[in-house]
Structure formats: C-alpha cells, structure tokens
C-alpha cells in the first residue's frame, strides 16, 4: 500500500503488487515446478529449519493454492534457468512479470497486519542463536506439526534425536522493563505453552516437560481447565521461578537451567531442549503503516484505540482487527474481524449488492425416467496424476464399466475450457451422471457441481474419484499398482454414481428483522450496529431500564468514564428510528428457525409476537454474592464492584481508611466454579490505583493467586506496585482467614491472616475494609433462555459458542448469535468487540433475501419408522421430532435445521431414516465395487458354472 487519499466512504488506495512470477489464473498448485526447481532454500514457513525450493506454494493449505517464486531463483538472479517454465503444463510461469500498480476505490479500510513474534536473537536471550538446543516457541510449533520440518517428529537441532527432557521458559520478551523487552503481557503464551506440552506428551508420553513461569494467566474461556489438564499429566512440572541459563554441555549439547525453589534454594538442572515462549511484538512495518494511513499508535507501537470502540482508529473509516489492537488470541482476533468488518459495512451498506450479478443456469433436465448414463472424465492434473497413473488406460477401462457411455482424459479438468468440454459432452452424449477421476472433493467439488448445473444436470449427480491425493501422490514410485488402484477408485465411484438422486436445495426467505435479547452495553451496541445498516431491531430488556451491569461500573483501567458512555448509548438506542425497545420483558416462547423466528415477548403486562430472521443473545452475567470472608455479616466487607461504586460516590469513610485488603478469586477457580472470572485482577488494580490517587497514604494489599493483568493491563499492575500497593500471593490450600479484631493502635479492624512463603511465617494484616473479587457468574436466566432458543451451555454454564475459533459469536443453532458476558466474563472493550462481531455475523444472514439449505439432509420413510426415537436422541441439532400421522407417531426431519451429518441414519434399526446423497444403497454399492476384479471374475465364473451344472441336470 503506497498511499491513501480521500475520506471515510470514499477512499482511494494505491497498491503496489509485487510480482509472484506466476500467472494466478493458470496455476493449479500442482507442485510440479517445485519438484524440478534446482534451487534449495531454507523454508520460511518452517522457520528455516527445513528446506524448500525457490518456487513453491507457501504452505500446504495456503489460500489461494498458488506457487510463488522467491528472489533466490536462478533466473531472477542470473537469467540462468527456466526449468519451472519448461515443466509447467499449464503455462503458469511468467518469469518476466513486473511490479504492478493499481488504484482502488473503497469506502472503508480494515487494518489487520497482525504481529511479529519477539526475536530473542537480538539480545541473545537465554543463549538463543548461540546455543543450538535453545529454540523459540515458533520453532517448536513447527517441529510439532505434521507438515513441519521433520513431518511431525520432534527432533532437537544438535543431533536430530528425540529430546526426553524439555523446558519452557515463559515471558520471553514480555513483562520486562529492560531495554529491548516489552513491558506488557503478551496474553497468549501461557496457554500456547500448555498446548505445546499437551501435544508433546501426545507425541511421546515419556517426555518430561518442565515449565518455568511467573503467573499462570489462564484467563480465557475454558483456559483454567486446559491448564489443569496439562498440569495433571505425569512428568509435567510447572515451576514458578525466574531462570537463567547455566551451561551447554560441550558433548551432549544439553542445556542447564538455574532456578529458585522455596525450600531448596537455587537449583541447576539439565534439559535436552529449551523452548523460549516468546511474546508478541507490534508488526514489523508499523511505522510505515502509521504514515500511509495517518493513524496514531500507542506507546507500545500497537494501534491506538478508543476503548469505547476498540476497532476504530483515530481516522474515521479506518478500522483495525486482530492483534494490532493489542496481543490477543485466535478467538478474539476472529471476533474483532467480524466486528470491524461489520463497521466497515456501515459505510458501504447503501451500496450492498450493487456489484453482484446473478448467475442464470439453464433449466434442469428431468432424467428420472432415464437409465443412468455416466460420463467419466479423467484428469492428468498436469503431470501430477498423468505421470504415475496410466490415464489413457484408465479411460479405456472406464468405458468398460456398466452404465458408462463416455470416458475421456483432460489435462486439467478444473480449467475453464475443460469445464466447457464437460458441459458439451454432457449434451452431446446425453450424460445424466458425471464421475471425475481427479482430486479431493474438498477443494473443487463446488466448481464441478457448478459445471453440472451449466450442463442442465442436477448438481448432486456428481461423484469425485480422488485419484490424486489418494493415489498418484502416495504411490508415485509404483505406477502400475497406482493404475490398478485408480481403476478400483473409479469403479467404486461409478457404482455409487448409479444410485445418486437429484436433490433440490431449498431457498428460504429471510425476515430482515433482528431480535436482541438483553439491553446492556453488548446488546445496545449490537442493536445499534444492526439498525445502522438498515434493519429493524427489537431490543428486549428484562429490567425497567437499559444499561445492564454497566450501570454499576464507573471507570475502567483504560480511563473510560463508563456512566456518560452508557447514557450516550441509551440515548442513541431510544432515538434510533429502527430500534424498538421492550422493558421489563420476559421471553415466553420461541418458534421457527433461521431466517424465520417468531418470539413471544411479555413486556409490561402486554404480550406480543415478534417475527425476526436472527436473534442475538446478550443477556449478560451476574456478580457472585460471597458466602466467605464475613461478607454479608460485617458491613466493612465489600465486593470490588461495591468499592468501585463507593469511590464514585465519594464515600468519605472508605476514602479515608488507613488500610484496605483485597482478596482475589472469591467464588471461582474452585470446585463449584472451575473457571477464572477474568476481569477481577484488572478490577482490583484499577480500584487500588484510584484509591491511591485520592489517598496516597492508604495501605493497600492485594492477596492473589495469579495476577492475570493480561495485555496492556500489565502496565497498570506495575504502576500499582510502584505506588506501593502490596501484592501477596496465597494458594487455595491455605486461604486467608478473616476475623474482627483490634489493631495495635486500637482501631476496630478486620484481621486478615495468611502464610507468607517468602519469610516463612504467618502474616497478619489489619484492614479497615476488605474488598472481595466476587466472581462473575452465569446469568440466572441462562438455562431457560438456552432451552427456548435451542442453544447450549458450557460446563461453566455460560453460553457455548458453535466453535471456539471458527464461529466464536454464533451458536450452532443457525441464526442465533451471542455477545457479551453471557458468553464469558469480559472487560467492556472486549464486550464491544464481540457485540460488533455478533452484529456482523447476524448481518451476513440478514443482508440476504434467502438462505440456502443443502440438499443432502435426512428424510424418513414413514412406513418403515417404528417410532423408537433412536434418531431423535442421535440428533444434536434437534432437527427430528415425532409427528402424528394416520399410522401413528412417526419421526419427521425438519430439513431446514438438519445439517446432514447422518448420525441418525446409523442409529435407525429399520433403515427408515436416510441421509440423502450418502444413502446405504449408494455406499454399499461402492463397497461392493471395491472387491478386486479377480474376485468379481471369480464370482461370475462360479455363477456360470452353476448355470452349466443346472443345464446339465436338465
């Protein structure tokens, strides 16, 4: 990106496109060029541990799956070689390509530059770069991966042997104030290390894993149990200690680490491999980015953001998603991506669909009365298949198969001209089914289905025989056997194709209205974002007023004044012509499905039925009411939330107190609630800083288990420590004890006692006030709401998203979305990220007129159903129910909800329920056809003999 001109809604961006030296429209990612390229280079994707070629696809699952040529290419350097161009069968190599410039017009811009990993080589941290067997976690990540440098084998650099003792060192480059380090917490390293430990143990259960850490920051959803899982494995030790590297054994090249223990002093221990859990840096080209887009950065060189809307930069129309906001993990990145995408769309909504063109397909031919007429197209895939499998031989063989009326070869079946050829042959030969002997259906099935539609054939009349991944790629050294196997695969495909049925995909109309349940910050933000993009929104709030939990919050660590912000949001909601608010509302009933819900709401005594296409659940969470530490018995015991309220109200007694003790993790991280409430550490530090600001003399103690001030909150934690807030660690086995008592100077105080592990004695703290980090707990209504909307709750009883990484703001029930603390405790900026994210996902549904449902769903043959209910129990989506029929109760599939996994099909004892397209009939015929040709011949001969015998007998 060279230059950005214009303003929000109308930017002009000049792009400079570096040459790839590959014609993108021609390259099929077949990889032949890579094989023949003579130049070996360190593979950047595998952290330079293994090698690749100057021309290669960046990594196995790259999108698009297209090669590029590296600067190390002999032609580019010395104009010497053009081997790749010679071997490419699709003329995709263009060594003369030059840089291109292009200007594009856009309404908004989304910056997602990601992050860099901290480079320990610069300072030589822990001997990295000097000691061979010290790796970064990124290096190690590649070692663990099946597509990594040693194909998933963990081998250490010095001798390529399996390490038996591995140490991880946490916080490398993070939580440091020294030159060259980052003061903030990188947020992701604790959990990714635990993941690496679990994978390591999976690779080899004997490996001893030792993790040297500071606080364990398992603050995310399900992180706490994940940590426990890693911690409980045999041979895994989590050791809380700073470390230094001792020595490298000159012979074994193993590395010793010195660390501190509470009972045995400093110890030195040897490890075969040391992994540095490196943190996250801001993007490498961040200054350039700043200049090009004229955006502000924060003191850590990440994007400067406003916590009222963390996806917004200081320049209107330019948004930011992912780790450029600050260190974050994949789910949060995906959430901010949806959210920022949605906000981009606010500038573009009036132009939605203006560039879209509708495809018109010829009318589908009715072939139901015809005999199966199968066409087999065998793809050479350049040389990928062709040089291993005897393609002409396979074509001849295919012609001999029953119902095959046409077979031919193609150089690349996926090329446009080949698709045209398939269409033409289908017409000419009257084909009504097509088998493609080519690659995996994973990538190209949609393309070939489209080809069939162009030919006027139902798209489900296609079967792909994968003779590339399953054959030529794995049997390149056994061409004859590979050809035989290709015959088997094609024969099986043909057998199945005979049984394929034409299926119709259903287009359901979408009601363009949204229902948002919950009027807190999350719900209001989400409602506004959807309404701003031209949709009607019903906002339903159970209380008499909007605002939710935020009405009790006053400030945040980022310095946000919460009350004016909430007031502003409430006003915007009331003023918005497209938002209708129901107060004191209860949801009584929900019916319907994606695009067509009907929800009955009782509000202030009146009942109404709301029709809507999507629903967003934003019902928030609650504060735990502590039963411990004299809460409710002694009025000097408060929660953090209550302390915050008293600070805001200027409570003199509190503000003038001599001492205040905070106890963290009250009501969570225990057996009842085995999760971390995420916000309390930040909350404690914020209250402490505010109190210190008002009354610098106040003694403040924070009793914690792990301080989880992740991300930039770490700076506030350090500031509090600098301001003499005392942080004292306790362990759950020896919780602090609280009782009323008298201080040495005769004050009535609460006495808090706990063991001091540093000094090895019991510590007694006198507190005028005790502040408890009362957990954030799931909303009271969660079970009822979950049942009404047919969505699920996690073990922690917060709402469970469809997929933690792939679909973090959606439920598996289509058309229902999720945001805010109902999902998991979170800070206000995180809720706002998620609220926009949920709006974005809901809008991808609501902006369409119809939603298409797959044709491959289940169906019940009523006469065979014995109403045993096995299918109903097997369906996770609640797509099956009993319906009364004249023949009694029968199972019935709602095809709109069915996702086609086919689990019910397998459970049905009578074969009454069937997954269309993957029927028993089709699959069994495929299995039958798998028997080798000799077997089949044998059977035919045996049958013939029998006939002869019978003939003789007569």
């Amino acid at each position, binding site marked *: 990106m060279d230059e950005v001109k214009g303003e929000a809604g109308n930017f002009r961006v000049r792009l400079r496109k570096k040459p790839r030296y590959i014609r993108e429209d021609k390259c099929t990612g077949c990889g032949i060029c890579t094989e023949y390229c003579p130049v070996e280079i360190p593979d950047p994707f595998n952290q330079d541990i293994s090698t690749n070629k100057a021309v290669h696809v960046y990594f196995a699952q790259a999108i698009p799956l297209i090669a590029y040529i590296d600067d190390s290419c002999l032609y580019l350097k010395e104009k010497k070689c053009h081997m790749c161009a010679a071997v490419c069968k699709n003329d995709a190599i263009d060594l003369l390509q030059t840089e291109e410039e292009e200007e594009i017009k856009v309404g908004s811009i989304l910056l997602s530059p990601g992050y860099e990993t901290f480079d320990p080589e610069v300072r030589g941290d822990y001997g990295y770069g000097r000691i061979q067997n010290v790796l970064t976690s990124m290096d190690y990540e590649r070692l663990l991966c*099946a597509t990594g440098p040693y194909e998933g084998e963990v081998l250490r650099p010095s001798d390529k042997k399996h390490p038996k003792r591995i140490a991880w060192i946490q916080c490398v480059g993070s939580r440091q104030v020294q030159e060259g380090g980052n003061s903030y917490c990188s947020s992701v390293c604790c959990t990714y290390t635990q993941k690496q430990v679990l994978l390591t143990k999976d690779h080899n259960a004997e490996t001893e894993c030792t993790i040297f850490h500071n606080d364990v920051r398992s603050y995310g959803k399900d992180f706490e149990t994940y940590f426990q899982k890693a911690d409980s494995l045999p041979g895994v030790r989590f050791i809380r200690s700073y470390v230094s590297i001792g020595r490298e054994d000159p012979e074994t090249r193993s590395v010793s680490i010195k660390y501190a223990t509470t009972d045995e002093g400093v110890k030195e221990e040897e490890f075969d491999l040391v992994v540095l859990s490196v943190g996250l840096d801001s993007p490498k080209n961040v200054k350039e980015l700043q200049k090009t887009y004229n955006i502000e950065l924060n003191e850590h060189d990440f994007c400067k953001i406003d916590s009222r809307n963390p996806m917004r930069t200081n320049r209107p129309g330019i948004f930011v998603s992912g780790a450029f906001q600050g260190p974050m993990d994949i789910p949060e990145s995906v959430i901010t991506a949806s959210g920022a995408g949605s906000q981009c769309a606010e500038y573009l909504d009036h132009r939605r669909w203006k560039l879209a063109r509708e495809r018109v397909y010829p009318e589908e031919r009715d072939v139901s009365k015809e005999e199966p007429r199968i066409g087999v197209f065998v793809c050479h895939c350049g040389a990928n298949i062709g040089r291993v499998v005897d393609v002409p031989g396979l074509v001849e063989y295919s012609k001999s198969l029953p119902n095959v009326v046409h077979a031919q070869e193609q150089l690349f079946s996926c090329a446009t001209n080949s698709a045209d050829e398939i269409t033409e042959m289908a017409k000419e030969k009257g084909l009504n089914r097509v088998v493609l002997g080519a690659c995996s259906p994973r990538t190209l099935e949609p393309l070939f289905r489209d080809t069939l539609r162009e030919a006027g054939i139902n798209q489900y009349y296609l079967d792909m025989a994968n003779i590339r991944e399953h054959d030529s790629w794995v049997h390149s050294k056994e061409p004859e056997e590979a050809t035989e196997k290709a015959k088997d695969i094609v024969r099986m495909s043909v057998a199945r194709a005979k049984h394929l049925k034409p299926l119709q995909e259903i287009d359901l109309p979408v009601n363009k209205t949204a229902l948002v349940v919950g009027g807190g910050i999350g719900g209001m933000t989400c409602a506004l974002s959807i309404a701003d993009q031209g949709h009607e929104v019903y906002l339903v709030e159970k209380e008499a007023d909007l605002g939710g939990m935020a009405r009790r919050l006053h400030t945040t660590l980022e310095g946000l004044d919460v009350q004016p912000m909430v007031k502003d949001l409430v006003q915007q909601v009331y003023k918005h012509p497209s938002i209708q608010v129901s107060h004191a509302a209860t949801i009584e009933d929900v019916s319907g499905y994606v695009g067509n819900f009907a929800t009955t709401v009782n509000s202030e005594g009146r009942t109404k039925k709301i029709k809507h296409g999507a629903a967003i659940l934003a019902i928030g969470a609650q504060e735990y009411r502590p039963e411990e530490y004299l809460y409710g018995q002694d009025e000097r015991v408060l929660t953090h939330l209550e302390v915050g309220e008293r600070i805001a109200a200027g409570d003199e007694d509190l503000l003038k107190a001599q001492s205040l003790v905070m106890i963290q993790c009250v009501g969570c991280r225990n057996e009842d609630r085995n999760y971390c409430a995420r916000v309390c550490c930040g909350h404690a530090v914020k209250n402490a800083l505010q109190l210190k600001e008002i009354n610098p003399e106040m003694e403040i103690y924070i009793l914690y288990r792990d301080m989880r001030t992740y991300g930039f909150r770490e700076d506030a934690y350090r500031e509090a420590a600098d301001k003499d807030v005392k942080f004292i660690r306790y362990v759950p086995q020896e919780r602090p004890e609280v009782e009323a008592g008298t201080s040495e100077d005769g004050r009535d105080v609460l006495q808090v006692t706990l063991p001091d592990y540093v000094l090895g004695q019991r510590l007694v703290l006198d507190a005028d006030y005790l502040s408890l980090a009362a957990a954030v707990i799931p909303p009271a209504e969660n079970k009822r709401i979950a049942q009404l909307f047919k969505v*699920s709750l996690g073990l922690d009883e917060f709402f469970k998203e469809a*997929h933690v990484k*792939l679909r973090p703001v959606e439920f598996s029930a289509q058309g229902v979305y999720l945001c805010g603390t109902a999902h998991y405790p979170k800070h206000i900026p995180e809720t706002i990220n998620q609220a926009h994210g949920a709006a974005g996902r809901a809008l991808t549904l609501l902006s369409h007129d119809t939603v298409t449902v797959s044709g491959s769903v289940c169906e019940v043959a009523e006469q065979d159903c014995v109403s045993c209910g*096995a299918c109903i129990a097997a369906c*996770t989506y609640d797509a099956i129910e009993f319906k009364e029929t004249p023949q009694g109760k029968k199972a019935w599939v709602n095809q709109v909800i069915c996702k086609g996994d*086919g689990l019910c099909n397998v459970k049905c004892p009578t074969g009454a329920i069937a997954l269309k397209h993957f029927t028993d009939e089709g699959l*069994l015929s495929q299995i039958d056809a798998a*028997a080798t040709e000799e077997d089949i011949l044998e059977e035919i001969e045996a049958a013939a003999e029998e006939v002869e015998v019978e003939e003789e007998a007569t």
Partner: protein
Amino acid sequence: MCSGRVDLRFVLRAFLKGMDGVFIGGCHLNECNYITHGNFDALNMVLLCKKIMERIGLNPERLRIEFMSGGEGHLFAEVVNSFGKKVKEVGPLGQSEGLDKKTLQFRLEAVNQLVPYLKLVESQRMKASTKSEEAYRSFFSSEEVDRIFDELVGDKLAISQILLLLREQPQSTGAISKQLGMTPSEVSKYIKSSSRQGLVRYDMDSKCYSI
C-alpha cells in the same frame, strides 16, 4: 457426512466381500467443527464391531479407526502403512483364522441379519458416556460390557447362526453343534428358546429341526 455415518453394516459388507481389513478415518476427537462429535459414535461402533468379530472368530485387528485432520497427510500415510502391514501380518481373511470360506460367509451373514437388533442394543446399553477415547476404550474392555454382550448379543448371535443353518436344510442337534462348534447342550438350549418363540419346529420322522 460425518465419520459417525459409517454404519456397522458397511464394515460387515466389506468383510463379506472378502476385504482383509477395514480402516475408518475420522477427525480428531474433541475437535469437531460442528457440535455433533459424531466421531465418538464411529469409535463406539468400531469397539462394538471388534467385540463381535472376536465372537465369530475373526481377528479384531482387521478393523481400525484413527483420528486425524485434513492437514496431516504424513500421519495418514504412516497410519495406513502400519495398518497395511498389520493386515498382511494377520493374513487372508478367514484362512488365517482357520475358517473356510463358507463358514466365514455364514457367520458374517448371521451378524448382518442381527444389525437392526445390534443397533438397538448399542444405543440402549452399549454406549460409553464420557467423551474421551480412554473412557470409550475402558468401557468396552470392562466386565460390565462383557456381561451385557453375552446376555444381549451372544445368545442372539448363536440363534441367528442356527436359524441361518436351518434355512438351508433341516438338521439334527448333533449336526448343528458340529457345524457351529457349540456343545449339544448349548444348541438345545437355543433351540428350545427358539421353538418357544415359534421360530423352529421339530420333525419327528427325520428327528431334525427345521424352520
């Protein structure tokens, strides 16, 4: 389509067609892209099927399920190579187990006939409850499952074989016991219960049972 769609019937059909081994590949457990976790259903089916194979004298190592992702080609190759090797070691189906072709077909067919019933038993009584591979495996190696299996499947399997035999021609208790490798008293126990259900009758003249 999920790996959980792989029907017990499919596996049996492959063996009936003379395949020496059956391999099922599923996604990694607990990493379902949906919410169904149907790969556990596949695992359950495989563990049950192995028990059945043992019962009818087939080497259960002929059936294997492994879990991997689409990005793990190397792992797939490794697993398939090792399975291929294993199947070669085990040898040709039936022959290595000392079963002639007819007996083998006969036993598999007897199981095949029972599939609807086996599905009911599986979903009602033989399903591990905790979603972990370990829990599934230990459930299927527990004594409780052995008991349920004997009680609900073992007898049915024996009867299914007897009925299949009688469908061909009437036979005496002695002949049946010889062919099925059961003791005559076992055979008469099954015959009795079958005749009570009206499935089998006794022909006084030939001293044979028939359908």
